[in-house]
């Protein structure tokens, strides 16, 4: 009996743990030796606390929410809805749901592409071999990410108040004649939220892009240069394809984050004016915990968010695949 080789990437195909990436067929099942079995058990013991907790706080509540979304009633007194899909039917007639959902999509469609492009430009500049003071630039641009969402929302609220800094500066530079009530009008209030999101998250995505850029094999870039490609062509045809997985990851995480955005909506604009800057998660919170809570309907809203997140992720994965 040979000692089981450690499961490295290039492990021998005959090594005891039978399920290896290389042997995709299930035909060869070598019986586990006693030691291997004990080690496999040790592995399970090590990972089960975390795995069980993830199931308990993610999957189990998700299934609970599905059952909950089929019930109606106020507070804790819930009964099965009649018909069962009553809450979902209500979603389609709910004006506030439609409004908050479309507001959330406006944030998503405008903010995420701008942020990812900006982050990509910044990451490429920071990765340039000739750039000086790299640490300074990187730290300063990443710094907003160390600030909490509630904190920055309050700072932005202060800056964009009618008697706030933004108006004062714009008037001083002659770009405005009179104070603008930024947070009091739908268009400008949404713009302030988008600016806030860009400020807070661009550096975060930049760090991921920068890490990915630093992992790119230099020789591929050299080869492109030798073949006569200019800077942009090298970036587009050599660098970009190698960054695709990380761009996809950032796009999915940002989409997910925007659809769940709550703190900014609650603290920066408090949903106003007239609920027009409210995100769908903020609305969900209000339905769940304001006035008389309606957990059944709230669960239906949460499932709508879940389904949209899943659909968008699927679309992004599909588009990401096609560009090969």
């Amino acid at each position, binding site marked *: 009996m040979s000692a089981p*080789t450690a499961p490295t990437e290039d492990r021998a195909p005959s090594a005891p743990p039978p399920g*290896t990436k290389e042997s995709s067929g299930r035909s060869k099942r070598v019986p586990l030796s006693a030691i291997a079995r004990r080690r496999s058990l040790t592995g399970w013991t090590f990972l089960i606390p975390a795995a069980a907790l993830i199931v308990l706080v993610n999957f189990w509540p998700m299934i609970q929410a599905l059952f909950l979304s089929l019930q109606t009633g106020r507070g804790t007194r819930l009964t099965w809805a009649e018909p069962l899909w009553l809450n979902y039917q209500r979603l389609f007639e709910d004006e506030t749901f439609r409004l908050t959902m479309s507001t959330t999509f406006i944030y998503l469609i405008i903010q995420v592409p701008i942020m990812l492009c900006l982050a990509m430009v910044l990451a490429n500049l920071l990765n340039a071999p000739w750039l000086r003071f790299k640490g300074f630039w*990187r730290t300063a641009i990443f710094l*907003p990410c160390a600030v909490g969402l509630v904190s920055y929302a309050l700072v932005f609220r*202060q800056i964009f108040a009618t008697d706030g800094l933004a108006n004062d500066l714009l008037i001083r530079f002659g770009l405005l004649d009179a104070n603008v009530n930024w947070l009091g009008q739908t268009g400008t209030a949404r713009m302030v939220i988008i600016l806030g999101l860009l400020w807070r998250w661009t550096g975060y995505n930049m760090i991921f892009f920068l*890490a990915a850029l630093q992992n790119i094999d230099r020789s591929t870039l050299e080869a492109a240069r030798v073949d006569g490609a200019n800077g942009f062509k090298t970036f587009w045809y050599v660098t970009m394809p190698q960054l695709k997985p990380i761009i996809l990851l950032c796009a999915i995480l940002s989409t997910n984050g925007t659809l769940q955005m709550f703190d900014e909506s609650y603290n920066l604009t408090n949903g106003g004016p007239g609920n027009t800057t409210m995100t769908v998660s903020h609305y969900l919170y209000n339905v769940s915990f304001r006035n008389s809570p309606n957990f059944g309907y709230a669960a239906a809203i949460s*499932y709508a968010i879940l389904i949209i997140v899943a659909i968008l992720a699927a679309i992004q994965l599909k588009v990401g695949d096609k560009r090969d």
Partner: protein
Amino acid sequence: MTKTQLRRIPAYVFLSVAVLLSVFPLYFMAVSATNTSNEVVASKLLPGGHLLENFRTLVDSQPLGSAFYHSSVNAIATTVLALILCSIAGYAFEIYHSRAKDAVMAILLLAIMIPFAATMIPLFRLFAQMGLVNSTFAVIVPLIATPFLILLFRQASRTFPHEIIEAARLDGLGEVSIFARIYLPTMKPTLAAAGVITFLFSWNNFLWPKVILVDNAYQTLPMLLSNMRAGYVTDYGSLMLAVLIVSVPTMVVFLLLQRSFAEGVTGAIK
């Protein structure tokens, strides 16, 4: 100046603008913390001498100490537990690799896609039934095991030389000792990255504590800030000071560990 140097000027200008825009709101926050409410409204951009006065107003009007205590306990407990649970799980997924474990990991990764909104209400009901509303336990439990952290540790384990584990086993070291005494000390950048991510997230987390901590006596710092915003009388100087106080610990943690953080993220992306 040579031609290539000239061509680099726009890049430096662009970066300078980006840095200015990134830092300016933070500068405004810090400066406003030292100015009176009227000076903040008048957009004074120079530091003033009212820091102590603002601090006194803040402490007199808000339970700052209590909120700071609760935020610290929550964030530190979450970070310590998350590092223990997720590092050992990520290690196990890679070192005791098997097809069944791969399948489990794939299922766990799906949890990244579940929006918190979809789990918040059942979680609240669960903890309410257990009588754990307002408890530290309920605040931290949903945050300590995340597929993302497990993935981070699993990826980092990929580059760990397995011969060392074999050698340690031959020397008679137990599996737990190998993990704790040989593997963990080599994982400092990953631990730092995971620690920074978890600490920042927990310290700044707002929605879940707001949902589960019904009694204001247990409120965390972000909740305190939010309540100040909603209050009728607002002293802008002390409000900005409160924001500054909430932001300083996370900025310090980030600045101290940022090198390791970048290394950890790079390791995970490889």
